[in-house]
């Protein structure tokens, strides 16, 4: 399923990978319901929800209207109550409890967690004794202008944090010039806090909740650059998994067995970002955005199998095309297979060798085919077409049906365009059928020239992808 929930003008509507935004109600008559929090604008946070099979999402309800345009985090307890931690426009860290009763979430009043200097990128969790913990980046603008990871706790369901909002809480990291990013998880009777400081250093501190006592800071890995491209998760047998993506490319995995960290395991040697990790049957599953080229991404899934990870496509709607054909009506060979050229990033390699263009004259076509339906085409051209226009069509089982893409008419006249054929996968026409084109059966969309080009477009890359970022996996 791929469904548009909302549009947003926030800088990062679905937040930061180490944080939490999507939750599944764990029990009761609403067991299985999903609740999603997102930044609706640069100052507002909203909540929406859906019951299985998650096809219908009611209009979102406003939760906060004073939020800073930076990532927030939340957690859900066993009763379905949600605790939201966010930075307000004055860069004060606040918490709102969303009480769950009768199938409805009701937002309480915002409580200040800390109001000294600036706070950002909080992470909130609730332990087994009902104690709330909030970890955050504390930017000491009144002292040394350094960033510190700190933690505060509340034993009264979030009404009071430490001794009050002026209480700085406990310092977990040294002082750093660069912003800090923090994540945490509970496993048995411990909190594992993992944070990135200095852009490239992932460190950890463990809190034994029987004290509670925080252990000393230890290094996990130091690589350029990680920032917030990491996530952690516990396994049922007491391990902690870590997925991290470097800004330069590769995606890695490490695991902590409560004694030591494993070596670094490469998950994907291609470029990935926004990793999310979860354990199922004590096996780590990693979900991430895989770079296909030209800043277009598709979601991928990796499952540990033996010493390595098995990679798989996550969404059937997204990825490279199974077949891309260019059709030149006046050519001696009318169809040319450009599948490989359309999937790679080589500039200017998608064209018909006789017309020297992707499209040329009236009746020429470019066909995009996949074994499963799709809703987007990321079109990167080395030469934008001039003067021509196309008609977009899909096959309904008996005829080619003309349609205007959801994102508007596109005539291969811009170098980099994301063509949304339909709003989302849920909006794909139900009558779109498989058909064989040049002997290849697929779900095809074609762009057919309605008026010829004076300058033919030449393609570099065309994929069923989008500009994905900031995955938030259900918790």
């Amino acid at each position, binding site marked *: 399923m791929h*469904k548009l*929930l909302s549009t947003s003008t926030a800088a990062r509507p679905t937040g930061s990978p180490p944080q939490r935004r*999507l939750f599944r109600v764990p029990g009761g008559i609403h067991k299985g319901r999903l609740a999603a929090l997102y930044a609706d604008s640069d100052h507002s946070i909203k909540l929406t929800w859906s019951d*299985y099979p998650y096809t219908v999402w009611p209009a979102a309800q406003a939760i906060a209207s004073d939020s800073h345009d930076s990532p927030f985090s939340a957690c859900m307890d066993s009763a379905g109550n949600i605790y939201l931690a966010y930075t307000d426009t004055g860069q004060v860290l606040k918490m709102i409890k969303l009480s769950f009763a009768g199938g409805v979430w009701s937002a309480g009043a915002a409580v200040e967690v800390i109001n000294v200097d600036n706070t950002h990128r909080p992470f909130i969790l609730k332990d087994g004794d009902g104690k709330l913990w909030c970890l955050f980046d504390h930017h000491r603008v009144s002292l040394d202008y350094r960033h510190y990871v700190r933690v505060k706790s509340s034993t009264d369901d979030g009404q009071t944090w430490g001794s009050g909002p002026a209480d700085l809480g406990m310092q977990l990291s040294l002082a750093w010039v660069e912003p800090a990013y923090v994540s945490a998880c509970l496993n048995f009777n411990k909190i594992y806090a993992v944070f990135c400081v200095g852009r490239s250093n992932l460190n950890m501190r463990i809190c034994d909740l029987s004290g509670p006592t925080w252990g000393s800071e230890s290094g996990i890995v130091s690589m350029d650059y990680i920032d917030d491209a990491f996530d952690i998760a516990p396994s049922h047998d007491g391990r902690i998994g870590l997925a991290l993506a470097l800004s330069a490319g590769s995606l890695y995995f490490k695991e902590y067995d409560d004694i030591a960290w494993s070596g670094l395991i490469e998950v994907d040697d291609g470029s990935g970002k926004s990793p999310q990790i979860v354990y199922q049957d004590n*096996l780590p*599953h990693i979900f991430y955005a895989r770079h296909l080229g030209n800043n277009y991404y598709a979601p991928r899934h990796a499952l540990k199998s033996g010493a390595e990870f098995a990679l798989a496509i*996550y969404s059937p709607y997204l990825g490279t095309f199974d077949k891309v054909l260019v059709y030149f009506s006046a050519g001696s060979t009318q169809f040319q297979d450009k599948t490989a050229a359309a999937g790679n990033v080589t500039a200017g390699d998608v064209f018909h060798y006789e017309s020297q263009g992707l499209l040329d004259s009236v009746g020429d076509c470019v066909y995009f085919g996949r074994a499963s339906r799709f809703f987007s085409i990321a079109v990167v051209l080395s030469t934008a077409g001039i003067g021509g226009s196309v008609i977009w069509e899909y096959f309904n089982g008996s005829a080619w049906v003309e349609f205007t893409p959801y994102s508007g008419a596109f005539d291969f006249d811009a170098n980099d365009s994301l063509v949304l054929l339909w709003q989302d996968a849920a909006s794909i026409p139900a009558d779109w059928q498989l058909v064989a084109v040049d002997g290849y059966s697929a779900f095809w969309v074609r762009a057919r020239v309605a008026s010829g080009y004076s300058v033919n477009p030449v393609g570099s890359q065309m994929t069923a992808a989008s500009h994905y970022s900031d995955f938030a996996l259900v918790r």
Partner: protein
Amino acid sequence: MNTTLSYLTGNRKWLVRDFVVWGDSGSIDAAIIATESGPLEGRVVFLYELAGGLAQVVEFSDLVDHRGNQLPESIVNAEIILVPKDESHSFIVGAVGPSSFRIAKSFGQPAMADLLIMEMN
């Protein structure tokens, strides 16, 4: 609808015998929200797929009970009890929906179970 009529029209039950469970427990129903960035605004999208193994999603309308009757397309507040027919452990994964549910075995070869499906209304 008054409660008596509701009671009489609800509480239906179906027994589906010898149902073969082949779904893998290791598969995970992964729900994700993500941002699709655009030139002027972002799109908040919901992604939901089953990943990491064979996922067995059963539509009620595909089932036939022990009397030979096809089950309805949708069942209100369905509850499902599995009665194992062999040593394999099988179970319902996640929430039961109005028209379908997901089922899995814990390990090994396909398992067999009877399904007692009750409409709680």
